[in-house]
Each structure stands twice: as structure tokens, then as C-alpha cells.
């Protein structure tokens, strides 16, 4: 009724190749962006912005990164958190080395460090596949996490071993540090996430994205068609780690505001992001957002929502329940729809397209 493609003719290949070829989709995305940029900062409480929206954005970016690697290129990674950590520590070093440069630029640059490290740990992917590759990424996870603790240069030799987030401003508005308001931090996060998502969407719809998917679906055939496997895989590692690195820098500088970072970037976080990708949908950027929303908001909702409804539930119990729920949901999703929330969304759209006369 409301969601129809009838009557929308595409007269150029460019319009057919657009990411959102349907007018309704474009309107939808505009509405979402308007809500994100206008409604949430104006109407959302500080708590909502700081503990729900910022984590959601950070996790979305990390999930997009992992999705590029695992969902699009078919290379499984259990080391996302470590690559995020590289971004965070890289950003910390950058802020000390170049105090004059704007923090947003530094956050974006810090992803390059994790891209480099990601390529390094991606090198074995030429020879090894599947579960075997998981070992290479686990090596990255544990080795890098060890470095975060044992290499004092990374945290500027301070006694606590933690990252100190300096106050940085843009046009005299504090962006990071204690005096930065949640709204400002939210805007920075949102800006970065929207821009990078746009890049990611461009990449996966273009030549590189097709090469990645070709490698995922049938690597031998891809090679016989002239795709250089090593290049495609390393490119996936680089782009994926870049996203993870920026997400990690955002996590420490715009969300946590500093602290003992080595424990944050643990294998648990890697798994969490992997679950976001699975629940959201492998090989779908939109799914990364769904997955991140689901898994980052669920714990908060349980922790604060249930007591509000009168269900007495302690912090620890809430955590246990979250674990059980997440575990059960993963299984349920895999059984019901191995392609995740993104596929459910597509099916829903398809239904809507033919509603109310499905035949």
C-alpha cells in the first residue's frame, strides 16, 4: 500500500545501481538520519545518549568492520577487540605526539595503525582457511592484548597503565575529556559512523566488494577470473581493521573517556562483536546496525528496564540473564534465520511490497 516500486522507472544505470533505488527507502533513510541528527540530541536524555546511543554507534562501526571481513570476505576473525585496541592506543600516541591536530582527524588516522597490524596478521590467510585462520586471529588477540599491558611505551609509561584522554576542542567546544557533553560526543560519533558507513557501502557495492564476495563464495573460481586472492583478502583485513581501529579509538576517547583499556579489548569483546554480526546478518551493513543495537541495548535494557517494571533483578543476575538470553537468541536465530535480522527485514519489506494482496 505504502511501499511500492510500481511507477518508479529507472532510466539510467546510475539510478538502478544506487544503493537505495526505491523512493520509499530513500525517504526512510532521510527520516532515520533526521532522527539521529536532530531528534535524539534534542529530546534524548543525557543518560540515553551516553549509555545507549554512543555505545550503539561504537559497536555498529566495529560490527561493520568485522562484517566486511567475515560476512563479505568469509574470513573468520576472533581478534576484533585487539584491532580496536590498536586504534585506541594508536590514537593515544597520536594525541601525545601531535597535540595541535584536531582530535577527529587523529581518531580517523588511528585506524590506519590497526589497518597495518591487521594486514600483518592477515598474511597467513593466503595459506590457511576457516578454523585455521581463527587461530591466526586469536594469536593477534592475545598477543596484542599482552602488548597493551607489557609495552609501557604504548601508554606513555604512566604508572596506572591506562589511557588518559586529554581535553580537545573544536571551535572551543570540548569534544573529548571530562567537560565534553554527551551531545557533543554523540555528534562526533554519529558523524564518523555515518561517513564511514557511506564509504563501506560504496566499497561493498563496487569492484572491491564483488571481489570480496567472490572470494567468499568460491575462492578458486575467483582466482581463475583474475582476482588476486592475496590482494583481496589483505584489502579486507585492512579495511576491516581500519573500521575496528576507529571504533576502538571512539570507544576510549568518546565513550569511556579513558581508563584501563587493556581489559576492555578482551576476547569477550571480540566474541560480542562477532555475535552482533551473526545476529544482525553476515554480509549486510544494515544487519551490523541491527546486531549492534540488539546486543548493546539488550544488557542496558535488562539492567534498567526490568527494575523499572517492578521485576526485582540485581546487577549480577541481569548479567547472567543477558548471557543466557544472548546464547539462546544466537541459537534461535541460527535455527530460524541463519541470515540474521537483516534477512528478516528484507522479508518484511517484501511482504510490505505486496501487502495487502500477496497473490
Amino acid at each position, binding site marked *: 500500500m505504502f511501499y511500492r516500486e510500481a511507477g518508479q522507472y529507472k532510466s539510467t544505470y546510475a539510478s538502478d545501481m544506487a544503493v537505495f533505488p526505491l523512493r520509499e527507502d530513500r525517504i526512510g533513510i532521510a527520516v532515520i538520519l533526521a532522527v539521529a541528527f536532530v531528534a535524539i540530541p534534542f529530546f534524548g536524555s543525557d543518560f540515553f545518549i551516553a549509555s545507549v546511543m554512543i555505545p550503539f554507534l561504537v559497536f555498529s562501526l566495529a560490527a561493520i568492520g568485522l562484517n566486511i571481513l567475515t560476512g563479505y570476505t568469509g574470513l573468520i576473525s576472533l581478534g576484533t577487540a585487539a584491532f580496536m585496541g590498536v586504534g585506541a592506543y594508536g590514537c593515544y600516541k597520536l594525541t601525545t605526539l601531535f597535540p595541535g591536530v584536531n582530535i577527529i582527524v587523529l581518531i580517523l588516522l588511528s585506524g590506519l595503525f590497526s589497518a597495518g597490524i591487521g594486514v600483518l596478521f592477515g598474511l597467513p590467510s593466503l595459506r590457511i582457511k576457516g578454523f585455521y585462520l581463527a587461530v591466526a586471529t586469536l594469536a593477534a588477540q592475545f598477543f596484542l592484548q599482552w602488548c597493551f599491558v607489557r609495552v609501557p611505551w604504548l601508554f606513555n609509561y604512566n604508572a596506572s597503565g591506562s589511557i588518559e584522554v586529554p581535553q580537545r576542542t573544536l571551535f572551543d567546544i570540548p569534544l573529548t575529556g571530562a567537560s565534553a557533553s554527551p551531545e557533543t560526543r554523540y555528534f562526533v560519533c554519529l558523524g564518523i559512523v555515518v561517513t564511514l558507513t557511506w*564509504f563501506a557501502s560504496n566499497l561493498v557495492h563496487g569492484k572491491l566488494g564483488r571481489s570480496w564476495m567472490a572470494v567468499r563464495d568460491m575462492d*578458486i573460481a575467483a582466482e581463475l*577470473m583474475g582476482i588476486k586472492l592475496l590482494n583481496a583478502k589483505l584489502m579486507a583485513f585492512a579495511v576491516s581493521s581500519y573500521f575496528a581501529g576507529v571504533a576502538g579509538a571512539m570507544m576510549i576517547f568518546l565513550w569511556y573517556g579513558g581508563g584501563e583499556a587493556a581489559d576492555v579489548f578482551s576476547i569477550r569483546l571480540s566474541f560480542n562483536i562477532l555475535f552482533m554480526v551473526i545476529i544482525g546478518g553476515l554480509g549486510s551493513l544494515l544487519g551490523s546496525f541491527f546486531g549492534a543495537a540488539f546486543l548493546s541495548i539488550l544488557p542496558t535494557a535488562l539492567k534498567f528496564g526490568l527494575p523499572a517494571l517492578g521485576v526485582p533483578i540485581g546487577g549480577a543476575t541481569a548479567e547472567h540473564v543477558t548471557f543466557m538470553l544472548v546464547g539462546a537468541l544466537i541459537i534461535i536465530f541460527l535455527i530460524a534465520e541463519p541470515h540474521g535480522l537483516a534477512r528478516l527485514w528484507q522479508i518484511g519489506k517484501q511482504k510490505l511490497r505486496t501487502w495487502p494482496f500477496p497473490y
Partner: protein
Amino acid sequence: MNAEPMTMTGTPIRDTGEVLLSVEAISLRFGGVKAISDVSFDIRKGEIRAIIGPNGAGKTSMLNCINGFYQPQEGRIVFKGERRAKMRPHRAAAGGIARTFQNVALFKGMSTLDNIMTGRTLKMKKGFFWQALRHGPAMQEEIAHRRVVEDIIDFLQIEHIRKLPVGKLPYGLQKRVELGRALAMEPELLLLDEPMAGMNLEEKEDMCRFILDVNQQFGTTIALIEHDMGVVMDLSDRVVVLEYGRKIADGTPDEVKANQAVIDAYLGVAH
């Protein structure tokens, strides 16, 4: 366009050009098993060359050698007058060799359009940053290649499945999409590994027509493996017959048909 009539006798009298690819005395072993032993033949520009033989004769291995997937232990392959040392498959692809596979090897998670677009990968030159922007030069390039791909889609009459994921298509269509993907590479030499396996009569006729059209319209040289003798005899200019990794006959379809070794290989011989 050379509208050479294909005669019903199956012996088209055609001028084929100079040698495009020659296989010289190659042998391929897997451990102790000899898949190919000392086979030589050549493929001339513009011809349709069939490779036939019983199961396990080494036909697919031969194609794998030609496009660099396997490296033969002995012998050499000369393509376009150039001797190839050890070659990675993507180099062969860049040199103009495309192929289809015995068991369809499409990218199952991608749409028909994307699958065929993948064939254009080597021809797309715009760098990473333009791709990340997807505007300006990268978009123009994408559109230019889309135009070529749409021509191929029209040619193969698969417009209706353009946006569908190939994993869900029926087998015959998958084979057609795979041919499209190979064509998108604009190859000089097209290797077809059993393009008609598992098809019904109608689909086979379509596929034959496509192969002939490709050969005549685009001038593409074709080497194909096929078990359907009727098809082989009708389509091909010359036939090479393998058995147990050795070449037992080579010549026009009529010559091969009359060859005693070939008859023995196919019908069996009393020992």
C-alpha cells in the same frame, strides 16, 4: 560477420587462423597417479576445439593446466607465441583465458548481475579511493561496464533473473550465467568444461546456439569438453580424444569418428 553455414554433416569447412595455444608434451602427476602423460595438441585462433574421452581421461586436468590452476611437471604450454613458465591462474585470466566449470562454480551469494560484473574485474582500473566515493570516475567506469554486462545479459536472454541470487536458480540457468561471467572477461580463449552436463534437450539446444554465436560473433576461440557426442560432432572444428591421460586421436570430427582407437575406447575392446 562470417555467416558460415554449419552443415548437418558436422564438418564445417572453415578457415581457422594461426595457432593460438599449443600444448607441447605435457605430463601431470598427482603423487603416483599420472593424470596426463605426454599430450600435445594445438588450438587455432577462431576454432571450436573439443576435448573428449571417457571419464577419468584427464580432460578437466588438461583445462586446469591450460589456465594455470595446475602446473604440469613436464612439457610446456605456449599461448599467443609466449611460453609460459609457472603461472598463477589470475595471470592466465589477465592473458585472456576464461573458463566455466564442470560443477557450476558461481558465486552463490551474489546476484546474476554481480556475478557477471565480477568478470569485468580485470578491466576495471579505478583505485580504492574512487571506489570508496562511488562518484565521478569510479561511477562512470561502473556504468560503462554495466552497459557491457547488460549486453551479455541480453545476448544470453537472462534479463528476468538479473537481480536474483544465483544460488536459487535452476541448473540450466546457472550454467548460462556462468557462461556470461566468462564472456564478460572478453576472453581470447574460452574453456568450457561440460557446458551441457545435466541439461535437457531444449536447454542443450540453447547452449549450442550460444556457443556458436560466441564463436562467430565475437570470434572467440573455444575449447570444450563434452560427453554428448552429437553436440561435439556438430559443433567442433577439430576434436582431440584422450584416454587414461594419453592422446589417442586428433582431427576433424569425421576423422575421429572413424578412428579405431576411439571406437575401442568408447565401446570397449575384447582383450
